[in-house]
């Protein structure tokens, strides 16, 4: 009912009678299975056989959220039941672990086919949280570490899958929780075992594979403030971080000035310089207005140079106007650019980007050009 990217082929009206009959058989078989599962669950027949029927149905239709709920109801019952292969009474840890493993396999196979299905991601999350209650901390850590590897594979297949990125942040949080020592004392710097450094490295790796990966740039912008706090970075280290990031984005801009992901990250770095930036989001805490001017002027200088090769790149003019606006907020008079320059940049934006004409008109008014 919400199909994406499926070509419009022959309509249902032109099916052959043979194809129609075949489809009717498929419908009957599917509906029989649905009815069977619903009946068994209504009767609370939470057996391994019913779990297998549920698996079969979910393989046919992983979007059927009620069936995932049924699965969790059955599993909750089975976790508490004795192992059928074992004569000892009471719940069996081995049995529960087998069930967990089988659900991890099921959801992994389904995610490969349906990487954007919310319900599969949810179930995986649920089963792992349950699994944690059966095992020791070390085993739980192993489970979540394997999960991080799985997400690595998912993001290798589609580096922009936002389910996978959100889940990655969630899994990292679970690993950090499990690695924290179980005392009420605040952990020392060494014991904190944060994954921020390795996650930051991961974004570097993803960006180097594909500069257009805005999901990776976004995550990087989220990690930087944490990274600096965890490193207990002083003024010098913070300035180095800012300069390194500006150098990285400068190279990226020079590689492909037409890619908007890169310019958004540039905007992020510029936003951390602003007086309006909340203290916790700033990269450098002790910027003077003189520092700010220097940064703005430096950015404008190399961005202007791109025009020598790419005079038809609208992002360049937009960035120049943005930096100029920031500059003028901290210092009214400047030799770096003139009002005439700004008017020229705005005219170029209007020429190159007529789709957004209304926005450029508004920008001209707000900059009083």
């Amino acid at each position, binding site marked *: *009912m*919400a*199909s*994406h*990217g*499926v*070509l*419009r*082929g022959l*309509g*249902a009206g032109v099916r052959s009678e043979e194809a*129609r009959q075949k*489809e*009717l058989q*498929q*419908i009957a078989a*599917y*509906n029989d299975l*649905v009815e069977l599962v*619903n009946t068994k669950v209504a009767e609370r027949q939470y057996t391994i056989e019913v779990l297998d029927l549920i698996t079969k149905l979910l393989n*046919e*239709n992983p*979007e*059927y*959220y*009620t069936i995932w*709920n049924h699965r*969790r109801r059955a599993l909750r019952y089975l976790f508490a039941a004795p192992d059928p292969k074992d004569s000892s009474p009471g719940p069996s840890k081995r049995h529960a672990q087998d069930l967990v493993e089988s659900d991890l396999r099921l959801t992994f196979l389904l995610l490969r086919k349906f990487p954007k299905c*919310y319900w599969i991601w*949810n179930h995986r999350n*649920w089963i792992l949280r349950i699994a944690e209650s059966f095992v020791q901390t070390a085993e739980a850590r192993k489970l979540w570490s394997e999960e991080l590897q799985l997400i690595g594979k998912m993001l290798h297949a589609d580096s*922009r899958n*936002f389910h996978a*990125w*959100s889940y990655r*942040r969630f899994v990292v949080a679970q690993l950090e929780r499990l690695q924290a020592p179980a005392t009420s004392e605040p952990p020392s710097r060494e014991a904190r075992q944060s994954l921020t450094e390795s996650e930051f490295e991961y974004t570097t790796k993803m960006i180097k594979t594909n500069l*257009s990966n*805005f*999901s990776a740039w*976004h*995550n990087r*912008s*989220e990690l930087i403030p944490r990274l600096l706090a965890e490193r207990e970075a002083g003024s010098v280290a913070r300035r180095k971080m800012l300069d390194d990031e500006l150098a990285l984005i400068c190279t990226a801009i020079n590689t492909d000035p037409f*890619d*908007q*992901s890169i310019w*958004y990250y540039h*905007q*992020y770095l510029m*936003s951390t310089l602003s007086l309006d930036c909340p203290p916790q*989001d700033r990269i450098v805490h002790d910027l003077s207005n003189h520092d700010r001017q220097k940064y703005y002027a430096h950015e404008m200088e190399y961005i202007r140079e791109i025009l020598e090769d790419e005079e038809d790149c609208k992002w360049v003019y937009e960035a120049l106007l943005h930096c100029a606006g920031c500059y003028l907020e901290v210092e009214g008079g400047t030799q770096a650019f003139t009002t005439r320059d700004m008017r020229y940049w705005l005219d170029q934006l209007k020429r190159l980007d*007529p*789709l*957004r*004409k*209304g*926005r450029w008109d*508004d920008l001209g008014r*707000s900059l009083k050009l």
Partner: protein
Amino acid sequence: MSLVSGPGRGGVAAMPVEMRLFVDKHVRYIQSLDTRKDELEYWLTEHLRLNGLYWGLTALHLLGHPDALARDEVISFVLSCLHDNGGFGAAPGHDPHMLYTVSGVQILATLDAFDELEKRVTGGRNKIGQFIADLQDPETGTFAGDEWGEQDTRFLYGALNALSLMGLLHLVNVDKAVAYIQSCANFDGGYGTSPGAESHSGQIFTCVAALAIAGRLDLVDHDRLGAWLSERQLKNGGLNGRPEKKEDVCYSWWVLSSLANLDRLHWIDGDKLAVFILQCQDPELGGIADRPGDMVDVFHTVFGIAGLSLLKYPGLVEVDPVYCMPRSVIKKCLGK
């Protein structure tokens, strides 16, 4: 918008063919949706049935054919999805969930059927309101979709949408929900599914619209988010959902309604977008697809038509950019 010919110069019928909306075909397409029981797809999409009814009914209202589905049958079906706990499932026998509860309430509001609800289910409105209110996380202010606990800004929006339509917003902590949305804001002015998540046009719609219901649009960085949203328009006129992604008709709603809520509709080229949406129609059997030449579905059909309504395509009924329902229905429910 310049698609409109001036008075006396011919109406929609005189439009060039690429600007024509096939109203009658879309109406017939939507009417046909419940007759396709000999297609496996009909059964595989049962988990979307109540959403589908909301999408289809809303499209029909915007097309100016509010009576194309039998009112009594629609109300009976909606109420057959209502559980004792006040939540709606996707279809009879499906578990209750926020996503369907919102659709159920939206359909009842559109059909002006809250009185019928009370007649058939005593205290129905309050039950539904309580189901929704119980899904708010008292610590963070956001909402879960159901008893299994998945949280997402989609559910937060759904909660405020349905509760406000029923006049029951007081059942939840709106200030806490607002604070949660603020914690999802990113440097680009956009919002994600949860704090730290990448900006995404669908999620931006839910957050901006939720803030609009709460009367707190002042918290949105209008220029920054407006700029980001305007960059979703690609050369072919279509809109994408995130940087460097493909265009898709459903973003004609998520992006465009957010621009409307921020008073920045003029920051994109509406004429080009309208032409793109119209290219995604199936000119023979009706319905609108994600992209030209693809299979149509009722989801893209309603969001394409709602987008055209925001663009003031001639002959369409005015849509409300916060609720994706006819503006007249919202005026009646909210008294404004």
